[in-house]
């Protein structure tokens, strides 16, 4: 019997997704390098969007300091690679552990002391800022002068050390995004997913149903932080340079949340859709402006700001819910299928 749960995804949607995946698997063979880098960026933000969505969309905790976890993941693996020659794959568990621990500390302090809503958001900003300034003075990772990874010969792809052509990074980010989607889907239909949504909807009522909200909120934060740090590993080895001023900056945190908000918080596909729309549109507009020779710094951010403004004002639940309804992809239109 078809489940009528909130996130029942119909067969039609799975077929569409499979088709899209097939397309994305072969895309590198046909597009040029520039478009490839755009796609890499899109999947990077799509992955981050999903990681952030777990904390906010599922468990209802607004984090505006997610750049902290990206930075921790980036610096951990980069430092281990530079100082000890450790492959980022081996450094990954350390990165995840450190980011998860940071998330646990923030969550513990916040939830233990009942810091919620906007105050919680400000707390997350404070910790990210703390890291930004702190890492500037952290000599082991070269502080404000920047940490640079040795740029290797791009002709060879060294997957073990994440050195190589953009194509390698493309497939990595694609794989991460797909894995995150699968994880989110599984989580939403699991016991923990139901409990998270209950907490998001009404924490007191959830507690009255036997849910240990403290534990589950912690779990959401720790999972989200750990997942986000993996993107940090990518960031370090793709861009090959790290500056605390950039990595931990609040602008990074805001970039992370734009896609899920625009796409639709709490939904399964919203964050990915948001990433595609936002980055895709932004880059296209930028290309257009480039063609006219007008490239003021900050133009892209103004575009992001306007998008966010319009979505928040006109489509408060994001673009995905009304879109899904229009396309007949949501739950209600699919009941007759089974």
């Amino acid at each position, binding site marked *: 019997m078809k*489940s*009528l*749960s*909130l996130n029942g995804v119909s067969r039609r949607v799975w077929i569409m997704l499979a088709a899209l995946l097939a397309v994305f698997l072969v895309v590198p063979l046909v597009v040029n390098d520039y478009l490839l880098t755009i796609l890499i960026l899109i999947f990077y933000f799509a992955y981050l969007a999903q990681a952030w969505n777990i904390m906010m969309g599922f468990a209802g905790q607004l984090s505006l300091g997610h750049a902290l976890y990206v930075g921790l993941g980036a610096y951990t693996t980069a430092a281990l690679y530079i100082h000890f020659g450790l492959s980022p794959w081996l450094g990954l568990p350390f990165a995840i552990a450190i980011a998860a621990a940071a998330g646990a500390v923030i969550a513990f302090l916040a939830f233990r002391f009942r810091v919620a809503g906007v105050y919680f958001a400000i707390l997350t900003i404070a910790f990210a800022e703390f890291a930004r300034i702190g890492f500037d003075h952290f000599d082991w990772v070269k502080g404000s002068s920047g940490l640079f990874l040795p740029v290797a010969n791009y002709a060879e792809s060294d997957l073990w050390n994440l050195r190589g052509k953009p194509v390698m990074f493309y497939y990595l980010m694609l794989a991460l995004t797909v894995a995150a989607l699968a994880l989110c889907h599984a989580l939403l*239909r*699991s*016991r923990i997913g*139901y*409990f998270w*949504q*209950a907490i998001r*909807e*009404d924490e*007191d*009522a*959830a*507690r*009255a*149903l*036997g*849910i*240990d*909200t403290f534990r589950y909120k912690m779990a959401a934060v720790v999972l989200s932080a750990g997942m986000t740090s993996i993107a940090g590993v990518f960031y370090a080895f793709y861009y090959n340079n790290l500056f605390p001023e950039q990595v931990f900056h609040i602008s990074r945190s805001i970039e992370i949340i734009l896609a899920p908000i625009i796409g639709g918080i*709490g939904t399964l596909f919203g964050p990915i859709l948001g990433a595609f729309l936002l980055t895709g549109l932004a880059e296209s507009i930028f290309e257009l402006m480039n063609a006219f020779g007008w490239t003021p710094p900050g133009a892209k951010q103004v575009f992001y700001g306007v998008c966010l403004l319009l979505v928040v004002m006109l489509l408060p639940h994001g673009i995905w819910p009304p879109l899904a309804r229009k396309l007949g992809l949501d*739950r*209600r239109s699919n*009941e007759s299928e089974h």
Partner: protein
Amino acid sequence: MAALLEVAGVSKNFSGLRAVSDVSFAVPEGAMFAVIGPNGAGKTTLFNMIAGVFAPDAGRIAFLGERIDGHPSHEICRRGIGRTFQLVRPFPGLSVEDNVMVGALLRHPNTADARQRAHRLLAELDLYDIRAQIAATLTLPDRKRLEVARALATDPKLLLLDEVMAGLRPTETDRMVDLLRRLNQGGLTILLIEHVMRAVMSLASRILVLHHGAAIAEGAPQDVVRDPAVVQSYLGSEAL
């Protein structure tokens, strides 16, 4: 025989205001126990202490022989006390079915089992047909039944109902009374706060009357309603 729930000498102050003052009573297993009294008498505060929302300033609360005063609300639910809220709080963005599933998942960690349990409850409470509807769009009587269904999904031994009849029309009230009687006959102990006297009189096996935070009468319904203190403070000349 030890009572299911024992409340002994419980008091609660809020910034100098005595909300509950030295209240004691016992709820035997299988009872339908009503708590009545004027607004502000301390009934919901009493409920909140039993349910673990906050701890009493004095006194003991014991459930199944073990102390529960001061314990967190999620733990008290696990021990077997379910509750509804005076102003109903279904999860607004979730469907009726998902609402009940959240409750069912407590004792049935497997989602398939939980869903089965939820469906059975939805059928029993006449909510099965609207199970896919989003809770925020429900009418008040449906929302009240949803809240009862959700609390029942946690398999409680004791159910705390806070003014579950409030805002219902007479036919809906009768329906709810029937439902509660059925549940009680099935073995569920119910402790309810109510203002709707006809419901109380037809259901309750025992009544506790609160006034200004203190217990002014307790006993069988027919005795309590004739108690002069009760008549004076709450019932007035209200014909029953």
